[in-house]
């Protein structure tokens, strides 16, 4: 556990000195909060109930895209950065286990993604009512709250698994980022159902999305852990 913590803090320390990651982590959530506020503002101006719900749901969907997008850059750099600096081998020469290393790298990306998503959601709620009048409680219902707090960690986990897998085969952080963005699209498709619904999001939808994500995450993480062995890293990784 101690070694996982050491890896996580090292990754964060490096990320804080990486402008691409830092700016992404600051501005991406702010832009999405802004976009969500605009949606709510427009939604409140529309008098057609179905269309209004679609806009409110779309606004809230940003808080499910965020946990999938934010960890991409951190996870991609955490592997590509090691490759670029040729620092992986000295790291592998330490007593850390393959699993500890994988978990450290994964958590270093997942934790900030979840933290920033929830903080952004808090910010959104805090400014939504005074600025644009808020979302009616029958739209921002318990299933939505469950999705934001329950589904977002799963989305982050899936996204990190995909990125770590892609990064093991890539040599450039931007390429890894772009390919990973395509890789996570299947997980985001069910969210479109949320936005297209003129009715309210219900627990059944959230449950199905949750189960699908758990299955997808398990599959992706299984392969990611497999490629994360010393033998593979030193002999197969590009």
């Amino acid at each position, binding site marked *: 556990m101690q070694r996982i913590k050491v890896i996580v803090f090292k990754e964060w320390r490096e990320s804080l000195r990486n402008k691409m990651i830092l700016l992404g982590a600051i501005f991406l959530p702010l832009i999405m909060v802004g976009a969500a506020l605009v949606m709510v503002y427009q939604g409140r101006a529309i008098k057609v109930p179905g269309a209004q719900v679609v806009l409110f749901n779309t606004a809230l969907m940003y808080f499910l895209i965020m946990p999938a997008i934010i960890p991409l850059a951190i996870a991609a750099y955490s592997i590509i950065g090691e490759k670029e600096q040729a620092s*992986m081998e000295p790291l592998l020469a330490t*007593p850390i286990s393959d699993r500890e290393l994988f978990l450290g790298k994964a958590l270093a990306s997942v934790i900030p993604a979840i933290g920033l998503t929830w903080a952004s959601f808090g910010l959104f709620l805090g400014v939504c009512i005074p600025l644009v009048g808020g979302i009616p409680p029958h739209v921002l219902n318990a299933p939505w709250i469950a999705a934001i707090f329950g589904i977002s960690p799963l989305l982050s986990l899936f996204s990190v698994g995909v990125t770590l897998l892609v990064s093991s085969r890539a040599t450039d952080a931007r390429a890894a980022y772009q390919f990973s963005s395509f890789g996570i699209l299947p997980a985001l498709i069910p969210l479109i159902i949320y936005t297209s619904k003129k009715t309210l999001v219900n627990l059944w939808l959230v449950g199905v999305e949750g189960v699908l994500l758990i299955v997808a995450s398990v599959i992706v993480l299984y392969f990611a852990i497999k490629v994360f062995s010393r033998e593979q890293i030193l002999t197969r990784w590009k």
Partner: protein
Amino acid sequence: MDQVNQEQCSVIQTEHLTRNFGAIAAVNDLDLEVNKGEVFGFLGPNGAGKTTTVRMLSGLIAPTSGRATIVGLEIGRDNRAIRERVGVLTETPGLYKRLSVVDNLLFFAKLYAVRYPERQTEQYLRLFELWDRRDDLAGTLSKGMRQKLAIARALIHEPQVLFLDEPTVGLDPEAALMVRKLIETLRTKERTIFLCTHNLDEADRLCDRVALFKGRLLAVGEPRELKERLYGRRTVIHLAEVYAGLEDAIKLPFIKKVERMDNTLVISLSDPEKENPLLVNRLVELGAEIQFVNELRVSLEDLYLDLMEENDATD
């Protein structure tokens, strides 16, 4: 030394160690023994399999066949314990350029679960004269300083065995000298050092024993012993002029071989300390005027190149 003591002294032992990558045998049937406190040179050209050997011996990759023990621990079975006891300096320093000097070292001290990581980090930064640069980013250091930091990283957990993969490659002469001095210092601290290099002069100066390797072991021994084993000992005698037929006239029983190049004789002997005075007397008796008598010194480079050439011819 009896067998028990020999085994106690032996820190690295390999038996038929082999590693294949597909159809290519990177390391083939390696039998090696490295003793405690020894600086052992592992010499070979690029692509000879030196790094693969180090990776196997430091518990990073598995051998295809054969076995090896490091400080009594078996590779494959005790990899984690091996990694706790060995330090590895990879060919490139592999530092985290966005982290400070102190953070780089502290990170590894914590991964190795060093008891007092901050204290140990400070001690090594001071030892390697990097303390004043502790807050600078590693990416801003000179090549020599990066290498020093990488060596400090390999030593931070006080390993029993240190693997150094090309520690002076790419360094300017001053930085290379500094690294060599560091290795000399480590030798005095009874650390076993496994030095991979193709810098033969460095190996000749630093190593107690060397192994010449190119996919398989070509020779192993003390540099001097190896040279003698392959070339014997030779005395070079410079004469004042060319004496026709002199080499045939010497006729001393201990002489193994005489070669003549103009007014220079190269004579192979088994015990030059005893045989040189007799040889000189004989030449004077034959009327030769001697200008200089020297021992012909073969460099490790000559030995290396000859062995590599022989190996290529065999292949």
